[in-house]
């Protein structure tokens, strides 16, 4: 391998144009290279840093690929049992109404085993934020069918493709919670391109700022890839996501509050 030398000029503080947020711990992410979780973690932590609310934030991690989010998110954080993060977060927010409280959950956690907790926290209008990472598959356990797996999509428990006649339909949780009076802001974003990341980050910021309004729950879905589970390269998986996931899970705001 050719010797690689960094130009010392680049390392001068005045030349820094971007650096890892202090709110991500120095630990290596456990996610597969190419997965969207890392970017989703980053933008959430950057927003907390930019708002200066690290000491006012309490997070709840799920069960799934992001079960270890507590290793990476440098905020006080609890790891909930599978699907129950919204219940755990409900109590935290009720006991500390002045704190910023959020959950970070995957599709199996939020839209299958935790359906009741998700719907009821949304419907009660808990004044907190739910981040929902939807990659249409159970990643941590090795690629099984998720509640959000697309019709015809292959997984280890739908090896011939999801047959909706026998396996049921994918659940659009985000559209569902948008119908509930307790949600204030419901949006679906992605993190596969720089412009998508910028838009997603704006949504994350709005979701946190909404907690100051005390008017209900903010719900941010991030449609993401799972290159390992989908058995694709990272690039292929992002293209497949645009071609297949986005038509079924359209990107954009579903319910927007005017906080002005």
């Amino acid at each position, binding site marked *: 391998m050719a010797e690689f030398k960094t130009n010392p000029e680049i390392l001068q503080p005045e030349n820094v144009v971007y650096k890892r947020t202090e709110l991500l711990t120095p630990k290596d992410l456990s996610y597969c290279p190419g997965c969207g979780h890392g970017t989703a973690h980053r933008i959430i932590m950057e927003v907390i840093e930019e708002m200066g609310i690290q000491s006012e934030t309490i997070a709840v991690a799920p069960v799934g690929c992001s*079960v270890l989010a507590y290793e990476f998110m440098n905020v*006080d954080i609890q790891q909930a*049992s599978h699907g129950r993060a919204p219940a755990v977060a*409900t*109590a935290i927010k009720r*006991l500390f109404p002045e704190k910023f409280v959020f959950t970070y959950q995957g599709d199996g956690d939020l839209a299958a085993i935790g359906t009741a907790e998700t719907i009821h926290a949304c419907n009660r209008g808990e004044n907190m934020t739910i981040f929902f990472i939807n990659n249409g598959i159970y990643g941590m356990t090795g690629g099984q069918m998720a509640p959000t797996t697309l019709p015809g999509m292959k997984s280890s428990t739908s090896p011939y493709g999801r047959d909706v006649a026998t396996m049921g339909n994918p659940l659009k949780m985000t559209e569902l919670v948008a119908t509930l009076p307790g949600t204030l802001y419901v949006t679906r974003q992605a993190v596969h391109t720089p412009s998508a990341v910028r838009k997603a980050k704006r949504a994350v910021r709005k979701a946190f700022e909404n907690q100051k309004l005390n008017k209900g729950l903010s719900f941010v879905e991030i449609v993401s890839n799972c290159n390992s589970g989908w058995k694709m390269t990272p690039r292929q998986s992002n293209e497949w996501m645009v071609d297949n996931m986005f038509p079924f899970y359209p990107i954009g705001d579903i319910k927007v509050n005017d906080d002005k």
Partner: protein
Amino acid sequence: MKELRLMKGNEAFAEACIRAGADGYFGYPITPQSEVMEYLMAQKTHERTGMVTLQAESEIAAINMVYGGAGCGKRVLTSSSSPGISLKQEGISYIAGAELPCLILNVVRGGPGLGTIQPSQSDYFQSTKGGGHGDYKLIVLAPASVQEMADFAGLGFELAFKYRNPVLILSDGAIGQMMEKVMLDVQKPRFTMEEIRKNTPWATIGKTPDREHNIITSLDLESIKMEQHNHELQKKYRAIEENEVRYEKISCEDAEYAFVAYGTSARICQKAIEIARSEGIKVGLLRPITLFPFPKKVIKEMTSKVKGILCVEMSAGQMIEDVQLAVEGRVPVEHFGRYGGIVHSPSEIVEALKKQIIGG
């Protein structure tokens, strides 16, 4: 100030929790314990002390709310009855694994399944042997009166925080529903932010620059660390066994025979003792107050004085296994149970003593 009231067991427990400085109650209705949440709601706890009372969408959500609140260093609790407590078991295992303090009340009804709404003691195994998955123990308190329903609220919180361990109050439908006079303790203040910071430095209350971020979890994917964590848990349980055994001895001084019974059964045994003694049978009662830790030592000591032990339980025979382990075969140990929601009569207990122990 202290106050003498006539109350139902469930209500006395609820009032005592408020007075113990509880920060949050999370529950779901189920007979025969719904009065706990009804009472708290009627009291407008948030106005009275700042305590949060929230009706959850399920017992599962409720116990996970308890996890969240306990992880913040707050005094939190839930209550339910047998089928609901079964639903909570996963959450209880997580709470035990993450070493969080909390209070859980089980007003036991007959089972299995949906069973009946009448009192029972058939959740002894579930309460003392684990209930959920993994090697863990709850501190289990067994009240036998409305007074103890109240007293164990404060005691339960104290032990929960002392050991960072969930405390289960194992009551039953009779104690929960019956009315007795009860002396209520003075109002304790809720924890201040300063106290939480000082007494529970592990609590998730917002990371400050002076410390690392706090993490509440029961997970460790490195088995060697998980084994070490289990060692620590076992060490804690041995300390609890060493320090926290509680029991009551009634009429044991000259006793030739002994009942071992807790909760409602223990109350009925007291009447049975009166009847038996009026017939010249010298029988006493050992009432375990803590079911874990179980009063093994005192039961073992009793075997040098009594000729036989009758375990009286509203179950098909659960606590008897712990009594047998303590007795180690030194004297006969028999079980007399009524179950499925049936409560013993004192006279049938005396008959059982005659037939199974004295005559046997």
